[in-house]
């Protein structure tokens, strides 16, 4: 049974690249393009891991992360936050809100895959 | 020295006592005719209370300490 990964980002080209990358590694993927969409897909799709962008319309990645952690159904899902803002405070905030890891854009595809695998192991 | 605030205030208290001693209505209490033990009460009252006041004033200013 393949692992499920939910990709959340509002940037189409990044979504395409992540989707392609995950599929190549044999994961099942779903895509959400904003915060509300992300919460909906997280409930429907029941992913094992979520790649979560921070800067998004409607709900920021932080808000999504917090909502996921407070909902018992999704509280245990792994969350890797992706952000183009590399400031220390943002990293600390993400981790404090319950993210499992924090990756700064642009990222190395190889490292990202390794990180995902380690969290799903 | 009466430059000490406490002494000055004690003296001022004696001032108030004196105003009370030497004026109506206390005065009218002793303002009676006749003599008691051979002395007129008003005269005795004024002289005794006056002297008592002077003694207390002396006690206040001459006391050592403070």
């Amino acid at each position: 049974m393949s692992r499920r990964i939910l990709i959340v980002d509002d940037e189409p080209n990044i979504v395409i690249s992540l989707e392609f990358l995950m599929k190549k590694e044999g994961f099942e993927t779903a895509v959400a393009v904003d915060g509300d969409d992300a919460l909906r897909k997280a409930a429907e799709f029941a992913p094992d891991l979520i790649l979560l962008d921070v800067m998004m319309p409607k709900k920021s990645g932080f808000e999504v992360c917090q909502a996921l952690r407070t909902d018992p159904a999704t509280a245990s899902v792994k969350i890797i936050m992706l952000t183009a803002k590399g400031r220390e405070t943002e990293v600390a905030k993400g981790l404090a809100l319950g993210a499992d890891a924090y990756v700064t854009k642009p990222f190395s595809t190889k490292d990202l895959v390794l990180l995902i695998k380690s969290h799903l192991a | 020295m009466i430059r000490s605030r406490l002494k000055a205030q004690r003296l001022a208290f004696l001032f108030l006592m004196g105003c009370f001693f030497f004026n109506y209505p206390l005065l009218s209490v002793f303002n009676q005719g006749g003599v008691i033990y051979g002395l007129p009460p008003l005269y005795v009252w004024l002289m005794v209370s006056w002297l008592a006041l002077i003694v207390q004033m002396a006690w206040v200013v001459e006391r050592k300490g403070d």
Partner: protein
Amino acid sequence: MLQGWVIVFASFVYLGVLFAIAWYADRRADAGRSLISNPLVYALSLGVYCTTWTFYGSVGRAVASGIGYLPIYLGPTLLFALAGFVLVKMIRVAKANRITSIADFVASRYGKSQVLGGLVTVIAVVGVVPYIALQLKAVSNSFAILSSYPEIVMPAMSGTIPLFQDSALYVAMILAAFTILFGTRHLDATERHEGMVAAIAVESIVKLVAFLAAGIFVVWGVHEGIGDIFAQADAVPEIARRLTTADSPATYGTWGTLVFLSLFAALLLPRQFQIAVVENVDISHLSRAVWMFPLYLFLINLFVLPVALAGLLHFQGGGVDADTFVLTLPMAHQQEMLALFVFIGGLSAATGMVIVETIALSTMVCNDLVMPLLLRMPILGLATRSDLSGLLLAIRRWAIAIILGLGYLYFRMAGEAYALVSIGLISFAAVAQFAPVVIGGLFWKGGTRDGALAGLTAGFVLWTYTLLLPSFAKSGWMPAGFIEHGLFGIDLLRPQHLLGLTGLDEITHSLVWSLLANLGTYIGVSLLRAPNLREARQATLFVGGAEAAGIPGWRGSAGVADLLPLAGRFIGFERAQEAFARHAHERGLRGIEELPADTRLVNFAETLLAGAIGSASARVMVASVVTEEPLGIDEVMNILDEASQVRRYASEVEQKSAELTRATAELREANAQLRQLDRMKDDFISTVSHELRTPLTSIRAFSEMLQEDPKTDLAQRSRFLGIIVSESIRLTRLISQILDLAKLESGRAEWTVESVDVGEVLSDATESMAVLFTEKRVTLEIETCEPGLAVQADCDRLIQVMVNLLSNALKFAPAGSGHVKVGARGTANEVRVHVTDNGPGVPLADQELIFDKFRQGAGTADVLTDKPQGTGLGLPISRQIIEYFHGRLWVESSPAAGTSFVFTLPRLTGDNDASKNS
């Protein structure tokens, strides 16, 4: 056998002894070994309060009203209970300012006012004259009675005796001569008289012992003790009433009035002020006087009532004036030596009072009345005369003679109509008028010169009308009608029942009205204006103890060369030199010549002079040196000027401080703005980095995937490469726009400003965008464009704005069904251009936000496919450009009608028709 010459001889021997004591004490003082510098002498000298009023008059008063003589001594006792608050402060202030008299005190307190000092002097002289008359009457009467020994004959009415047979006249002349010898032998800068004080202390002992001797003789010599006298008195109903006092509200009212009247008198009578304040050697002496002086009063009053009762018992049927019982009782029992001793005691009571009172008054008359007048008469040239100390002494001697002369005159006129005590009370009521300005001046900073003048005048006028004039009238020297029927026959103006007030004795009645008017006007008039600079300074010196130390009195300065001769003219050159040398020594300098010309020296000289001629005159004299201004109106102007200078300076300081406050506030605001800008810059950089990282992420991800997997199929590969290329273009555009914006914002952008035809801009822009519109199948049309619309602008920049707006419209216009309309219209002074699409529209809340950097309008529901392309910098840049050319750019939008971006620019009109030229 007591013959006249024996009494006269004894009197002169007594006076001679006194003079010797005074002379010795003065010698000791000059040698620096003061005889009077101890608390006992100070307390005894305060006994000058007890005059012949006490010595003879108290018995008379006791005969008239029983115990009613006593309040006059209870009041001073209460005053000394308040010593810690009133006397201590008064002495300290007087010492610090070299106050020489009660007039000087008042004048100095209210801004060193000469007028005020003069007024106080006049009131004091007029008020105290009856009191001096009382002494003359007592001495001459007692002399007359004693010289008729062994007969007891009351003297004839003084008014009926020919002038040169009146012993009172000779008493007055002898006392004048004696006082002049005592008090005006030389002029002292401190105005202290050590010899006099020593003599007064001795006199206090003499009169106390004399009275006690008479009392003891009467009680145990004539009777069998106090109890015997009281028992006998109680047996005679007519006499027994003296054991009580009338039990009525009026009596108690009078009693209370006398207590407080005497309290003030013991402080404000010129001689009391002189002894208690001016002659005080060391303020610490006061503390023992607090109980010793009341004790003295207690002792001298101990036998008053018994003697009065014994006199009444002995001289039943009258014929003997009760005021003379102290003398006549020993005479009636053939005790001639005791009678002589009592006479000497009475003489000492009288001389003590007259000496101190007239010396104090002569100082006031000289310093506060005569000298200010003389100094203001340029004809006399006093201001330039080299030695005035002789003149000062002459003035004082004449003053003493004149005051005693006035006392004699009053004695001849009014002396017989009143008992001793009643005469004294008239004087008490007069000096009580000083109470509001003196006590108020010590504790209230708001009092002004005008208030003090008005209060004193009001009180004095009412005192004269209700007490002094009636005393003349009763003596027959004035028509008595106005007492009965009021002035001009107006009943309400009856002097002893003013406004119909009845039920009070004349003293209480007078005091009620005069002090009410006095206090009321003093406070009322003072409150009319704020104290001026000088008054405020003096108020601080008098009211506020320690804080006053640092207040400079002078803003100018003068050197020793000016000040020493000035002081020398008044107090003698040698004394002045000594004083200056002492001052130099106190300041740690070696000699007079080292003294700098500073304000401290001027202040010192002023205080030195104040001791000799009073503070008000001293101020004027020092001013003449310090400012080199002639006296008179100029001096007044000078003082005014000084005040206004200080005011101006103060207001400048105030203004500066306000400016400083304002500058601080501005700085704080600027700082806050800077911090805000800093935060914004931080946010901007963070946003920029985010915007740059986003395309980079895609580029890197796809590049890496292509690198990892060379076997990617061709279609996939060209798709990835396409994304990489478009993201690179996006990145490039982003960077160039950021740079562009930075240049615009910092004002470093280059502009080519010329007349631009708007129609051409529109067509150029639409042409360059045509391909993109065709690709997305969106129609683009220029719907209206008036010809000849010209603006002053940079053509390329305007095209840039149009391209931004068109790509923005294209971005939101629906593919296939979208259409975008462009138009330009002109009004009289502006050109209006709009770009309208039929996209989803911009919510009202976002209509300003979209002009912020990196804010892009949220797209349609499917953001993934329809995410607005662009950098989020187009609109902010466009707005910067339009605003640079003084135009406006805004958005009008509604969901139904789509979105319209509109900008306006000022229209170029007139002869310079740009459309034809370009």
